[in-house]
């Protein structure tokens, strides 16, 4: 007896959501270029420049070259073996770049950091991450895929509570403001701490705001339980408030 093919099988096949692309076709080349270019740009600006300069250790150069090799190999393999290609192009490339930075020593120290190039490199790394994602290609209809399971469209179970977008907007504005404040820190030794703190605070702020904005619409706990649940944090905040007032009076 033969078994019907499993539509959800996750063996190495062309990406779901992408049409089959002929080898050597312009679309294939475009896809490979999309995979390589952002990573190559990030590699050039943040790995090659410090590592290939004067005083850069040979081992770091080898690791940097390995990173580019893995990126190119991943892009070439992407159409046939997407899972392996992603392992090479994302994890292998980032790991080799990290190794190059670790081996480079003082060549990538904060004192030698060039802010504009570092910012451009950050954009390159972000684009690299996006480029390895899988988006629906122009003209491709997912339902036309032979592996698609036919069913009625899923309807949203509800709408967002009132004020959700406003709260999220305030949180995003606050997060952007925090990052901007971190860039104003002039002291070299404190700037890195400021950026780390601002990034953590921004992520926490947006995460909690999104949670508060969305969960407000769900079935809420009893007011008494909500107050009791926050009692510990509110008590600590009260104590910190008193300590802050006393401290400012004593100064």
């Amino acid at each position: 007896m033969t078994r019907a093919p499993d539509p959800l099988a996750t063996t190495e096949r062309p990406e779901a959501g992408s049409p089959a692309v002929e080898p050597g076709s312009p679309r294939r080349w475009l896809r490979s270029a999309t995979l390589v270019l952002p990573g190559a740009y990030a590699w050039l600006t943040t790995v090659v420049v410090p590592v290939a300069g004067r005083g850069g250790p040979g081992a770091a150069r080898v690791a940097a070259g390995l990173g580019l090799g893995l990126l190119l190999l991943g892009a070439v393999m992407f159409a046939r073996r997407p899972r392996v290609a992603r392992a090479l192009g994302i994890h292998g490339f980032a790991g080799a770049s990290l190794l190059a930075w670790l081996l480079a020593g003082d060549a990538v120290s904060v004192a030698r950091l060039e802010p504009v190039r570092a910012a451009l490199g950050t954009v390159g790394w972000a684009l690299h991450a996006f480029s390895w994602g899988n988006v629906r290609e122009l003209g491709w209809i997912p339902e036309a895929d032979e592996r698609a399971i036919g069913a009625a469209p899923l309807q949203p179970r509800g709408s967002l509570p009132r004020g959700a977008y406003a709260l999220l907007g305030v949180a995003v504005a606050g997060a952007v403001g925090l990052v901007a404040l971190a860039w104003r820190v002039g002291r070299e030794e404190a700037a890195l701490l400021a950026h780390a703190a601002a990034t953590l605070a921004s992520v926490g702020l947006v995460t909690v705001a999104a949670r508060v904005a969305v969960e407000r619409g769900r079935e809420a706990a009893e007011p008494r339980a909500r107050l009791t649940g926050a009692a510990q944090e509110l008590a600590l905040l009260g104590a910190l408030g008193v300590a802050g007032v006393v401290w400012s009076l004593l100064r």
Partner: protein
Amino acid sequence: MGRLLDAVSFALVGGAALAFALGAAAIGEQRDLAALYWLVVGGLVLRAAVQTLRPRGGAR
């Protein structure tokens, strides 16, 4: 009462943003102790915002 607590939760998120901003500004002004103070306050306010909305343990 529930709506008031919702509003408190909203306000706490705004308060956390303000506390974090004061902390980041304090780092720039070399007031390290004040920076630490405001960052801790910000973290606690954020946690209070979550707990006010949905307390731990899911008690009803």
